[in-house]
């Protein structure tokens, strides 16, 4: 469920970009990524129960997604930094799950192809923004730093996911560092977890914008109890 919530929430955030992207090709790309994630969320949530009940009828405290994915879109640089951090994580995670024999192996085998594309998209844009103009460099640097404090949470061990989390974290850090350096960006130096204990989102402790996001997402479904759509 935590992985399903990650995909569901990030998909929602990317869906907010529709009609607002900086260039038409990005309308297509961001919607494409959002759709892939929504597909993953539906499979993952269905493993636990009814996808719509889980998405629309749980309250904030019952969601187990990372705080990283619930962060508002901000400018395009913030969206790309969030994508870079998260897709690199997903790529490492699904890569290992696909190779294993857990019940998630099948899903992971399909998802790993999608997230490799997402990671490439984020990496390409990180390079362009970091190594583009002075303004884009500054914005990208600022975005990388603003989201850095949410990245530690990704490596809290999860039930049912039997991988070496410390090694995964080290690989993630090496991969992200390499991309940021190629993009002429400085790797942020701040702590990788916020004032809340690391793992807060996984325990149902979220940031303030998340409740508002859920209010919008769930409003219609909750207004018509028991209806089918």
């Amino acid at each position, binding site marked *: 469920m935590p992985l399903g919530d990650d995909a*569901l929430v990030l998909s*929602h955030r990317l*869906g*907010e970009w*529709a*009609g*607002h*992207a*900086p*260039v*038409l*090709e*990005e*309308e*297509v790309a961001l*919607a*494409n990524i*959002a*759709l892939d994630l*929504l*597909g993953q*969320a*539906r499979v993952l*949530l269905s493993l636990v129960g009814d*996808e*719509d009940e889980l*998405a*629309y009828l749980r309250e904030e405290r019952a969601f187990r997604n990372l705080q990283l994915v619930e962060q508002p879109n901000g*400018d*395009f640089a913030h969206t790309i930094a969030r994508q870079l951090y998260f897709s690199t994580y997903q790529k490492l995670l699904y890569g290992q799950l696909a190779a294993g024999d857990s019940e998630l192996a099948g899903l992971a085998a399909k998802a790993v192809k999608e997230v490799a594309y997402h990671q490439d998209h984020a990496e390409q844009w990180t*390079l*362009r*923004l970091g*190594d*583009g*103009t002075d*303004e*884009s460099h500054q*914005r990208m640097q600022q975005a990388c730093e603003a989201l850095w404090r949410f990245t530690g949470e990704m490596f809290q061990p999860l039930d049912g996911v039997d991988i070496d989390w410390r090694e995964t974290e080290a690989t993630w850090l090496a991969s992200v560092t390499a991309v940021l350096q190629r993009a002429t960006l400085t790797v942020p130096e701040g702590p990788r977890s916020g004032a809340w204990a690391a793992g807060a989102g996984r325990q149902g402790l979220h940031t303030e914008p998340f409740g508002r996001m859920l209010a*919008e*997402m769930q*409003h*219609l*479904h909750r207004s*018509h109890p*028991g*209806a*089918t*759509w």
Partner: protein
Amino acid sequence: MTAVTAETGTNTHGSQTADDKDTAVYAAAFDAAVAADERIEPRDWMPDAYRASLVRQIAQHAHSEIIGMQPESNWITRAPSLRRKAILMAKVQDEAGHGLYLYSAAETLGVSRDELLDKLHSGRQKYSSIFNYPTLTWADVGAIGWLVDGAAITNQVPLCRCSYGPYARAMVRVCKEESFHQRQGYELLLALSQGTGEQHAMAQDAVDRWWWPSLMMFGPPDDESSHSVQSMAWKIKRHSNDELRQRFVDICVPQAEALGLTLPDPDLRWNEERGHHDFGTIDWTEFWDVLKGNGPCNEQRLTQRRRAHEEGAWVRDAAAAYATKHSNGEATA
């Protein structure tokens, strides 16, 4: 391809020049190709007015796809089930893709996408008046799929045989995807219509609000349509506005019955003699008003489009700067 135009073909004395003779030969070949239902391709000679007319039509069509993303994406974050949310996201994504095909088709006529977007943003080129209406409930997403996409398909299927090749080919691809969206919209409305009383009422209200604006999508009546006669002679258009509108009404009536919804027109009835449905008079004052920019959402739609473009400028600049930095090696190699 030739740069010959009517202006350069005539010298100051008004007598015939060699270029003028060439133009006459090209024009005859063009007319013959159109008459024989052959396709005109980007490198072929074409009358300036034909080129201009196509640029106008294809650009407006592309703009409509782009602006048309707004009323629907208004509901992406509120879609009531994950399945519906996925369908809607895919649809809005397709629309961006259609915009891309159509700008490419327009570019074969010697204009650039940037130039056309500029004209959209400054209000010098239009988009379909339908997208100036607001989406007020979830059922509007279904009504747009059924009625608005339905009207678009009725308009666009004949364009698959349009005389200009790149436009006709773009239409083949667009129509396939649009038909899919239309079925999904219909199915959404059906689910609502057969759902709870509140859902049924929501569906009926949406159809009541979208029916007349959908009929307006076919453009002004034939006797007031300034571009129609020439477009039909050039085989850009194949049927008149009123013919297509009638065809659409005839298709929708049985579909509305199957949906269990009514169409908001007391004058709508089958005319045995004509073999068509008679229907009430369109409010042309509203149509011209919306077209002039005074519809419910004209300002909002353009403002959002301009804002997306302006706020994205630094991203496009970054991509261009990066491309320049990193292509120098290849360019000089």
